[in-house]
């Protein structure tokens, strides 16, 4: 079983690296990529049912070890990546056909880096200590950067570099926390509940201020990938510049790697007890709430659909971070559920945005009037995902936000315990205000609308992933009892 973890990383890595070597025709490339994605999916599915396992890949020194570890948290994020990548990938098989233009990169290059990115993601999910995670975090940045500059225009190159430098800079801030922890924490291996603040942590008391500052810096550093203020600037630039399937996985899955990194650092090395009630927690909560509000506001003002969705990601991922920073079980479950709910909804939304671009290059919100007549099924998927994102029961978005609000109220932190839910609510209203008008104008364009065409959907390769995701948001919500129960039980050791 152990060795399967290694295979899960190696299969997409090798198949991605070898794809350009084979020089196949387009059809061969698609079959090859699709097969690699499906094999990864099956492997990940098998691993979901494996028991906890640990595999040391190599150790450079006693503390500098790269090890893989499979626990519930890795399973959640691994499952997310394993499901999300094939869906967006199959969509891409159709979508990217027309993206390979004069001057852009070859489609093959895209699939190659797409698979490599998946490998780095699996590596992050399975890493067993901070060093391994840091390594895969950096690799993820380097390997997903080419997805952004696919079109090779000035803007996309600038966006890719912005992404690269924000992420690398954030990782170096994270490294600041790492080396201090390497000296003052007993180990860098992930242990539920962390090392500081618990029993037998007198050493950490002596350097309390130092460790608090470094924890804050490290968490802010890793939050660069999750797009939290003040390191959010790259996200609204880079996500819309990428081709639609890449934006979908960037927003839906790769940005979540930042969330995973924060969970690992906060809950598995530092320990929630160490930060609970300190100024660091207040700072982090305030930053995440600020991001929630600011992201929604910016999304509301934005006219370009993909940019609007990117700002929406800034806001929604910080929902999850807010829950994690509450440092209590309800907030934590809410955060994880929000990660899953947002991933399903946002991948679906970005893919529908891609479908609109694919058919008639409709990029602005104003272009989408009457789109419901042309692409009814696509717009239905869009609507279902919107409902989830806003947080309307019984969609998954509702359940996660319910837990988040509950966690905030339970936390007992003055002001923020009620201000948090209020801001979440305001942001939900803003989310409704920037998503629903698209549906309304799409289905009911008004009298002066001149019909272009009827029922010109994107074809099975594009529609089926959309449908699966839209239904997924619903199912995640309906069976949320199963998930929340699983998380509450599985993550009880963290607190």
């Amino acid at each position, binding site marked *: 079983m152990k060795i399967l973890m290694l295979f899960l990383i190696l299969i997409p890595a090798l198949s991605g690296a070898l794809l350009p070597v084979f020089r196949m025709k387009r059809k061969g490339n698609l079959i090859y990529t699709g097969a690699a994605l499906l094999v990864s999916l099956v492997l990940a599915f098998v691993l979901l049912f494996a028991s906890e396992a640990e595999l040391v890949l190599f150790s*450079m020194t006693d503390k500098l070890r*790269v090890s893989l570890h499979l626990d519930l948290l890795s399973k959640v994020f691994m499952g997310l990546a394993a499901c999300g990548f094939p869906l967006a990938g199959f969509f891409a098989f159709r979508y990217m056909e027309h993206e390979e233009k004069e001057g852009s990169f070859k489609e093959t290059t895209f699939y190659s880096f797409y698979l490599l990115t998946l490998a780095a993601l699996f590596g992050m999910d399975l890493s067993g200590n901070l060093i391994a995670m840091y*390594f895969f975090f*950096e690799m993820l940045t*380097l390997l997903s950067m080419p997805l952004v500059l696919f079109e*090779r225009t000035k803007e996309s190159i600038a966006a890719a*570099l912005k992404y690269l430098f924000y992420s690398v*800079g954030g990782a170096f801030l994270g*490294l600041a926390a790492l*080396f201090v922890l390497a000296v003052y924490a007993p180990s860098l291996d992930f242990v539920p509940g962390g090392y500081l603040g618990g029993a037998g942590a007198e050493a950490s008391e002596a350097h309390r201020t130092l460790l608090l500052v470094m924890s804050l810096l490290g968490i802010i550093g890793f939050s660069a990938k999750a797009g939290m203020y003040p390191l959010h600037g790259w996200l609204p630039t880079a996500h819309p510049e990428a081709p639609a399937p890449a934006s979908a996985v960037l927003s839906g899955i790769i940005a979540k790697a930042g969330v995973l990194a924060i969970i690992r650092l906060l809950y598995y090395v530092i320990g929630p007890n160490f930060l609970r009630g300190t100024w660091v927690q207040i700072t982090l909560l305030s930053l995440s709430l600020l991001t929630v509000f600011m992201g929604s506001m910016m999304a509301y003002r934005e006219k370009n659909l993909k940019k609007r969705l990117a700002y929406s990601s800034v806001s929604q991922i910080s929902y999850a971070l807010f829950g994690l920073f509450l440092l209590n079980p309800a907030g934590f479950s809410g955060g994880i559920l929000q990660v899953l709910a947002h991933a399903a909804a946002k991948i679906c939304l970005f893919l529908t945005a891609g479908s609109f671009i694919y058919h008639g290059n409709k990029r602005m919100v104003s272009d989408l009037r009457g789109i419901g007549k042309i692409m009814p099924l696509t717009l239905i998927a869009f609507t279902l995902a919107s409902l989830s994102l806003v947080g309307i029961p019984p969609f998954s978005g509702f359940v996660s936000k319910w837990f988040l609000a509950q966690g905030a109220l339970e936390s007992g932190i003055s002001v923020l315990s009620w201000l948090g839910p209020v801001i979440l609510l305001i942001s939900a209203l803003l989310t409704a205000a920037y998503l629903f008008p698209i549906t309304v104008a799409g289905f009911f364009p008004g009298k002066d609308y001149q019909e272009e065409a009827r029922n010109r959907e994107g074809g099975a390769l594009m529609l089926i992933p959309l449908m699966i995701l839209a239904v997924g948001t619903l199912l995640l919500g309906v069976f949320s009892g199963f998930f929340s129960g699983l998380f509450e039980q599985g993550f009880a050791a963290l607190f």
Partner: protein
Amino acid sequence: MISSAFLLPVILFPILSGALMPVLRIRERRAVRIYTGTVTLLTSGFAWLMILCAEDLPVMLLQFTRDFTLKLRFDSCGRFFAGIAATLWPLTVCYAFEYLEDDPRQHVFFTWFTMAYGVTLGVSMAGNLFSLYIFYELLTLTTVPLVMHTGTPEAIRAARTYFAFSLGGAAFALISILYLIFGGAGKESLTVTRIFYVIGVLGFGVKAAMFPVHAWLPKASVAPTPVTALLHAVAVVKAGVFAVTRLTYFGYGTEIAAGSWVQYLLLVLAAVTILYGAARAVREVHWKRRLAYSTVANLSYILFGIFLMSPVGLTGALLHMAFHAEIKILAFFAAGAVLHRTGREYIFEMNGLGRKMKVTFICFTVSAVALTGIPPFAGFISKWHLLLAAAEENTVWAYVGAGVILLAALLTAVYMLGMVRIAWFPGKDADLSKNETVRDAGPWMLVPMVILAAGILLTGLFPGIVIRHAQAIAETVRAMGGEF
């Protein structure tokens, strides 16, 4: 065990062989290649034999007066430095064969290049500060002709600057050494001793390109690439760093400086140099000059580790000495390969070259990622140990330095990965028509580059043996104090 008496032949062999080249009239390309290749390989073989088997005893060569003696001694610290030089020298010579293939004056180049090898080994084997000083001066003298090899006015100006800086610095270092030899450290007050120590560090710091005496290094990048790669990223500049190590840990001893204003002054100087070098590298558009500024910054990483004056700090410094050597030499090799094939020197001219010179740029990418300090490549290991040392030191200035190192790492990402981006992912409007005829470099260049890239990966994955050696050196240095 090999007697230390054999140290002298190892130094003299390459120096004499180099000097014999004009006498034997070895000028034809093939003859030069065979002669230089054999000499270099033999020297590296001897050097490694001595590193592994020589006894650690002093051997007296000359006694000028009671106080001035020429002495050789091969201790663990020297062996570490010699190991770096002896490994990288044959690779560079191999690279230089192709780089200088059309140069009619290549026999002159290899004459000096071979002699510089012997002198560098001499620096590593010097048994006291005075001998170190002599080899240090000889190193300047043998490398100046290499800097001005092309003979252009620019090269001659650069060589003049290099000469003036190095000699001036050595003069200051000599003052400091004389102070030690005449026993000033015991007689004068602590403040005076500290001032003389700083003078010595700044003097040797010239070759280590410490701010404000760094200016010669970026200028010297007009030299042929094997020189910039081996001498100005490894042998010469690290001889400066090595001399500072000798002065700090073996000459004055860390007790006089640790915890005082001297240490803080030097740490701040190192931090300023790191930031200055990295920032200038970002602004620079000439490829080799950018790498030279990057060297300025990275040498001060090493100095920062030395000035932390703790065993962990010295470990980090030694590790960075070794790992930066292999990384930077590879980066220069890639720059030189492009220069040799296309004549292009500026970064914006690299548009899309990655597709045409695949192996070169794959190697360069490895070097760039490693220099940025991303695991599993070697650069991460040394940076990690420097940061650990700073955290164990736990003083404000140590954390300032650690912050600066992290900030400089971001700048490194900007200036190195930016180049990688241009080479592999050119903009849409880039004119790629000029690239049509470009071919990858030949095997003489590619083989050393591939070996180095593999070395960077391997030492990054399995750094245990290097780390253990560096730690052992740091421990012995602490145990024996200032006995040198």
